């Protein structure tokens, strides 16, 4: 899909009836992202009921009480660290960790409770001007414990440094975390959060990124596993000229709920953001939610933003909710656009491929691989790309087994 019109271009050509969509402006529900209430005190938040805008898509009964009073003091998580030379990765007590340095303050009851329960912070420190070619790998493995575990990660990259930090999540767990990302002036950071959880895991994550002057952040969220994955990612700028690329790829199978909530706060002039999330869904009650909020503040002149969410619904019974939301408070912008498209396999594409002799099943595979190929290229971390390809192939096996009622 190509969209040339830079201002508020929007494409509903393939939108399904399932899809909610808002165009921002003061009247739009949920547009008050800028004024979100924030507090480190869990008691300052009411337990959500599911009627709130920010909780309306989440199946709260499957959050295992994280949003209410269930304990978050488990130790059901093991973190394995593989860091190249020049990067310091340590688990430090909260008091000695600079927690909160990004300006992050919890924005909901779960993250405030996590904040209150956190004892240790995983700190990834890349010194100024260090150019680290090899990625830092953190492997977070759930030990299958029922009690929820709290986590806090702080990734800090000094001025003009370059680094890549990849976190793999595996195993069974109820894991709730806060993540802070600080990108120094002129620095470039790639952060990958790869959910390869066992089918029964619950993962609640709130990430807050601060992008320095002329700095670049590429944030990648990949979700295959888990029962309920709910990630909220916020990006704000600290100085003009910064850029953020938010990429996401997800594959929701029967019964899985995968939710991404994004907020890009263009609070500085000449900043850029580009959001691209692509997902496939298959099986009964597979559910994907994507909320893409972008705010362009009055002072954010000359910014450029584009966000796109695409869902491929492979079977009946799966549902994708996609809500792009653009709030513009200045007229002096380079470009601002969004698009959301949720569709089935394109019959014309399948016909085209089959008319060249390619059997139906192979044609579907080709289209699905093609759908995700662009993401693998954009992510640009080979170790992640290879793992993703293998995971996509495994998902295709499920899709092609016919047990999910893929239409003939």
């Amino acid at each position, binding site marked *: 899909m190509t969209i040339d019109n830079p201002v508020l271009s929007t494409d509903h050509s393939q939108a399904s009836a399932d899809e909610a969509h808002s165009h921002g402006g003061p009247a739009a529900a949920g547009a008050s992202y800028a004024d979100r209430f924030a507090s480190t005190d869990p008691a300052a938040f009411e337990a959500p009921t599911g009627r709130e805008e920010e909780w309306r898509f989440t199946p709260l009964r499957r959050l295992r009480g994280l949003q209410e009073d269930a304990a978050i003091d488990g130790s059901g998580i093991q973190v394995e660290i593989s860091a190249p030379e020049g990067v310091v990765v340590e688990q430090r007590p909260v008091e000695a960790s600079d927690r909160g340095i990004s300006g992050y303050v919890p924005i909901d009851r779960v993250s405030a409770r996590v904040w209150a329960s956190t004892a240790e912070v995983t700190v990834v420190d890349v010194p100024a001007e260090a150019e680290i070619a090899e990625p830092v790998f953190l492997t977070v493995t759930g030990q299958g414990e029922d009690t929820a575990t709290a986590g806090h990660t702080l990734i800090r990259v000094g001025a003009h440094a370059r680094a890549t930090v990849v976190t793999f999540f595996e195993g069974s767990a109820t894991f709730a975390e806060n993540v802070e990302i600080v990108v120094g002036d002129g620095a470039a950071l790639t952060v990958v959060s790869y959910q390869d959880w066992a089918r029964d895991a619950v993962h609640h994550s709130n990430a807050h990124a601060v992008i320095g002057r002329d700095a670049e952040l590429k944030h990648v969220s990949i979700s295959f596993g888990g029962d309920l994955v709910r990630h909220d990612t916020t990006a704000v700028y600290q100085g003009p000229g910064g850029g953020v690329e938010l990429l996401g790829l997800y594959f929701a199978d029967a019964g899985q709920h995968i939710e991404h909530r994004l907020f890009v706060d263009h609070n500085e002039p000449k900043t850029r953001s580009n959001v691209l999330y692509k997902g496939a869904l298959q099986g009964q009650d597979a559910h994907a939610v994507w909320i893409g909020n972008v705010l362009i503040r009055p002072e954010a002149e000359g910014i450029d933003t584009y966000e796109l969410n695409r869902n491929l619904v492979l079977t009946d019974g799966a549902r994708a909710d996609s809500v792009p939301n653009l709030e513009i408070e200045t007229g002096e912008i380079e470009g601002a656009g969004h698009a959301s498209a949720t569709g089935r396999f394109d019959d014309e594409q399948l016909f085209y491929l*089959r*008319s*060249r*002799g*390619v059997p*139906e099943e192979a*044609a579907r595979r*080709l289209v699905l691989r093609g759908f995700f190929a662009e993401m693998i290229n954009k992510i640009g971390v080979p170790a992640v790309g290879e793992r993703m390809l293998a995971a996509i192939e495994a998902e295709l096996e499920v899709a092609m087994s016919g047990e999910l009622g893929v239409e003939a």
Partner: protein
Amino acid sequence: MSNLTISDLHVTVETPEGPKQILRGVDLSINSGETHAIMGPNGSGKSTLAYSIAGHPKYEVTSGSVTLDGEEVLEMSVDERARAGLFLAMQYPVEVAGVSVSNFLRTAKTAIDGKAPALRHWVADVRESMDALRIDPSFAERNVNEGFSGGEKKRHEILQMELLKPTFAILDETDSGLDVDALRIVSEGVNRAKENTGLGVLLITHYTRILRYVKPDFVHVFVDGKVAEEGGPELAERLEAEGYDRFLAKA
């Protein structure tokens, strides 16, 4: 020598107002090496004939038959038809995101032949055909039809036809929207395929222009879902001079 025979073909298409009859008894027979031009005004059912033979799910055959060397084509799936030797060059080829032309061509060739082509010959064949059709080598790495101009899409269709070597090809208004240079390049591709493989061609067109480059052996005029008149190349010349008015007046 192969033969494709269309007998008494009736086809409907689903519309919001219910099924609509488009083809009303088409009869046509074509042999290897022959070129049949199918001409007719807009809405006469020319494209429906093309898509019905290829097996597009939108079109329902209510009666009649299409046989390829005696085998009933209508009982075959879309991809079986292609593997049996039929090819449809589409008027509006579809984009396939994330699938490169080179991957697409190799996948199709492997499917048609039932085995992967020998790599060295294949690479040389692809390059040669692309050269002949003036397709820039960089197209091999581009996604199928994505960002292609109208002319590039049509040349890409003919490229596929040359490489897949079908027995019969249906060209659905391949000439529409082409400038003179592109028309000549595409026509040369069709003539090459005829010469090299004895391809039989069903050339669907609204205009006579392409018939200066691809010489038809037979001309069939389509009006209101069936063949209204048949003849040799001279019929095309008459249409060039007179247009379709006399057929429309009759219909």
